[in-house]
């Protein structure tokens, strides 16, 4: 499929007419633009990467500047789940259930080496899932142990670009002819 360019500002054009203006746009683009600017993350952290995620939520880095306004403690109200930390085999069914409980559209960010591959230290342990994508599908991966807050912000912005350009799993699936 063809890669669309990412609209960086409001998608559409403004036609000046006497006494005001008319905006023309595509509804899909407006929906994507609105969704990408209001992504509510689920409060979900299973180990040390969670500390970095908290600092990104705090005043110094502050991801609400980018529309990740309110971290929700319930999956029913969350749009994006940031897997911040190691997923052990016992936790895997819980992660799956949380993901299933989130309302569509939903997005997943795998933060840190543990969420990507099982971790820098314990990837070969009997208790650890070797990558959260064994359990749920992931949209954006962030390498690092832990990734710096800037890296998480970058990943969240990458997710926004992905949504705006219609490249997430669900958007691609919807475009397929039935």
């Amino acid at each position, binding site marked *: 499929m063809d890669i669309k360019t990412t609209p960086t500002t409001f998608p559409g054009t403004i036609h000046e007419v006497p006494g005001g203006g008319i905006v023309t746009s595509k509804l899909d683009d407006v929906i994507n633009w609105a969704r990408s600017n209001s992504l509510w993350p689920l409060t979900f952290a299973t180990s040390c990467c969670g500390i970095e995620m908290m600092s990104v939520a705090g005043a110094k880095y502050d991801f609400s500047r980018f529309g990740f306004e309110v971290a929700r403690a319930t999956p029913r109200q969350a749009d994006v789940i940031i897997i911040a930390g190691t997923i*052990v*085999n*016992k936790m895997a069914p819980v992660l799956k259930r949380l993901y299933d409980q989130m309302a569509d559209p939903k997005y997943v960010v795998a933060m840190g080496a543990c969420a990507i591959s099982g971790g820098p230290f314990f990837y*070969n*342990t*009997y*208790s*650890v899932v*070797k990558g959260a994508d064994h359990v749920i599908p992931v949209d954006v991966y962030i390498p690092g142990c832990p990734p710096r807050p800037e890296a998480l912000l970058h990943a969240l912005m990458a997710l926004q670009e992905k949504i705006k350009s219609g490249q997430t799993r669900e958007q691609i699936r919807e475009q397929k002819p039935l």
Partner: protein
Amino acid sequence: MSNITAELAIEKLNNQFGDQIISSEMLYDFLTVTVARKSVKDVIKFLHDDAELNCHFLTTMCGLHYPDQAEQFGMMYQLHNMVANFRIRIKTFTSDAEPAFETLTDIWPSANWMEREAYDFFGFRFHGHPKMKRILNMDSLEGWPLRKEFPLEDPFRADKDDKMFGR
């Protein structure tokens, strides 16, 4: 406040249990007593009930595995008398292949999870425990991870091949 010395505690235990007390030593100021397996619960109960020793607090307990010993499996208990700041460690060993011990949950309810942990990681059973099942690992895990024969690297994964990782 009474002052309990290690000598006093040893004397009391020896008077009460005689040859059931196998050995005792001071490890870094910590009185450590090895007890025959069949009396370990009586010893702990005595330490708990005795008015002077008054070990009212179970600090911790865990399984032991020394594969080179004839009695390779064992349990370790740490008790604390907070009033007199007296602490004691009790060890017991067994040569059984499937070790089983008496539960302490009737003395301290807090022993419940620690005994489940010992079951989870060493496969020790505890007679009289209200809910003897795994606590930290997934229920379907096979084997006892903290026994020394359990492989250090994940025995269940197939995707990492030694050929490719140069090990």
